[in-house]
């Protein structure tokens, strides 16, 4: 499928890159990325992927836009307060790039729908804000063989890891944390603070990783947990290895299906 003159103009800054070129842009155009959570991480991820010319973006979020979201969730704005986040996201994405096909699921990503949701996509971005969902994304993507970006933010600190299931050099989340850390249902006061641009930084990194994996360029964060301490403005990477006894990605996994109660 050839690019129109307008698309060549629009994506010129991608195409001129040696690592991308017209072939890379075509891979982006053919790419379909699912974003779990249209919040602090999902917002910049969606915006940059739309800008880059991704073929399709799936947005999964069950919430409505609240005032305190606007401190960091840059997909949304005052005109979408009270609106379903998926709709708010779709509207903004279309304004940036109407070429992008936007699919919306105004639902909670759950054990019941996870496998079906990830099935039609090439890459998944975990933009969720709780451990249970992060582990669900991990497990579903490993089971479905879908590459994904894990990320988390708290305060001024954040981390990211990319996983391509099936690769020897790509540990999943459970290779590092076999069990979901216990967490109360409502975040504690201390856990609800997050600096907007720190979330923005990581969500942007997630979009970059998605593009790299789709276009097969560079070195994604496979087996490397990227950690940012934004107060010190220091990035560190921690080397991780696949666990041969991993409950979900090993040769003999204990987790072979998604059970609702495991993620509550």
């Amino acid at each position, binding site marked *: 499928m050839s690019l129109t003159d307008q698309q060549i103009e629009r994506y010129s800054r991608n195409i001129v890159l040696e690592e991308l070129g017209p072939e890379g842009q075509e891979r982006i155009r053919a790419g379909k990325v699912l974003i779990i959570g249209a919040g602090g991480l999902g917002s910049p991820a969606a915006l940059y992927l739309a800008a880059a010319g991704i073929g399709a973006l799936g947005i999964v979020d069950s919430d409505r836009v609240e005032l305190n979201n606007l401190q960091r969730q840059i997909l949304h704005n005052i005109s979408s307060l009270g609106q379903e986040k998926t709709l708010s996201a779709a509207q903004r994405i279309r304004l940036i790039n109407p070429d992008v096909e936007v699919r919306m699921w105004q639902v909670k990503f759950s054990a019941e729908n996870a496998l079906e949701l990830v099935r039609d996509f090439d890459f998944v971005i975990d933009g969720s804000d709780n451990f249970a969902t992060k582990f669900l994304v991990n497990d579903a993507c490993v089971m479905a063989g879908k590459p994904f970006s894990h990320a988390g933010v708290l305060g001024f600190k954040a981390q990211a890891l990319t996983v391509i299931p099936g690769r020897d050099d790509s540990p999943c989340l459970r290779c590092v944390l076999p069990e979901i850390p216990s967490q109360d249902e*409502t975040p*504690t*006061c*201390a856990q609800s603070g997050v600096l907007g641009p720190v979330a923005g930084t990581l969500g942007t990194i997630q979009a970059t990783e998605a593009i790299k994996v789709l276009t097969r360029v560079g070195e994604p964060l496979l087996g490397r947990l990227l950690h940012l301490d934004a107060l010190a403005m220091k990035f560190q990477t921690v080397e991780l290895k696949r666990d041969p006894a991993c409950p979900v990605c090993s040769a003999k996994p204990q987790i072979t299906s998604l059970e609702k109660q495991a993620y509550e």
Partner: protein
Amino acid sequence: MPGEKFLDLAGTACPMNFVRIKIAMSKLPPGAVIRVRLDGGAVADDVKRTLVEQNYEVLSLEQEGEFAIIFVKKV
């Protein structure tokens, strides 16, 4: 206590209850004490923990039925 400031945050969830305490404290001189009514149980414990983490002095916390009364001092 005469002149003591009282903040009624019953029904206010985290983190807004904590945020309101911080804002009230920011307008007071060091040594000032405020009395705060919060939702009881885990909510009050959580607020207390966060106050201590952020260097406020919690003089007392008393659970009273569905609420809690906390005395906080600005250090």
